[in-house]
């Protein structure tokens, strides 16, 4: 699965505990400033669930919470470390760029 932005945002949000759809949308808006639409959010959730990277928890409420699985946490960690290396390199190169 490609790590597109909604997938990374959802996994990152679930990394600190289970959340249902609305809590996910609010959390992502808070930490990333991104307003994910309902179709985008549930598209990412269904793909992640198919992949086994998140799982739905039992709930009496219609608002079903999701939690990240060990496989999902592992893949997210690898992706974020790789992204961090790219970000660090990019930022250091921008700092080294001569100013005109």
């Amino acid at each position, binding site marked *: 699965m*490609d790590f597109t932005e909604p997938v990374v945002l959802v996994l990152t949000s679930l990394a600190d505990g289970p959340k249902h759809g609305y809590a996910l949308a609010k959390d992502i808006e808070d930490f990333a400033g991104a307003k994910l639409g309902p179709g985008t959010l549930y598209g990412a959730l269904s793909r992640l669930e198919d992949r086994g990277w998140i799982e739905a928890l039992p709930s009496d409420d219609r608002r079903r919470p999701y939690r990240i699985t060990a496989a999902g946490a592992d893949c997210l960690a690898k992706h974020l470390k790789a992204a961090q290396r790219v970000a660090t390199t990019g930022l250091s190169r921008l700092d080294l760029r001569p100013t005109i």
Partner: protein
Amino acid sequence: MRKDQPWPVALLSAYPADWRARYGDELELLIADLRAGGRAPIPMAFDLLCGAVAAWVRIERRTLMSQRSRNALISVLWSWVAFAAVAAWFGHDLAIYPSALKVAQIDPSHPVVPDAYHVLLAAGAVGVAATAMAAITFAINALGYARRCGRRSTFVLMAVPVVIAGGWLGGLRLLPAGNFTVGNLTLAVGWLLLGVAGIAGSTQAVVTVIRSTEFSERTWRIGGVAAAAVTAVMVVATGATITWGVAERASQVHRGDASGWLIVTAIMAVTTARAVIALIGARREPAGKPVAA
């Protein structure tokens, strides 16, 4: 749609029915919560329509992948069953080999003979392990699907191989042993043919279950790994059987009729080629456009 719900909820009907059954209720609540929180309805409606298109594309892609996987897996299964039946029969004849005496005779000049025999044994063990792994995974998935969908026929079909194997092995114990009369020989050959028919019937029952069940992506991935593993085993075992036969005949220890070995080798080669072609064909078929995650 209820009157108190925001109008974008109506767009949920654009989603595939299976998708709606799984996520519809939750998405409906999310839309209502987001509207109550002040989210504008038009961008939300546009986002829902894009989500519906993506869900349909994913289902189309999954169906295509599933059909390709299904056909390839069924071809490999038939090839593997035929291969394993012949190899098992051949192995039954080989069970006396390598005896210590025979190894002592062959080993000094033709060490490849016992080596090939051990390669055959190792390949057989890997093949059985891969088959068991796939069989357990597919059986669990198929039982779950049958229970959810109320398909009693799946339970019956899955019992067929167990009943046939139990009946055939049980009957084998009742066959008279030791007396090589015409009647006993006819009975033994008849029982053997019945066993072949039982293997074919059991495989067809499994194929019917595979064709009529919706398996998860995870199950197909495990099936794909097992199919690749048994195909590799077939390639290795065919090579080892050819090496074994050629080397043993070269050793001059065995001067018997070679037709049995040649027939076994030919069947192994044909079934192996069929499995390899099925796997390559499944990979060459055009896949649907990948869906961005």
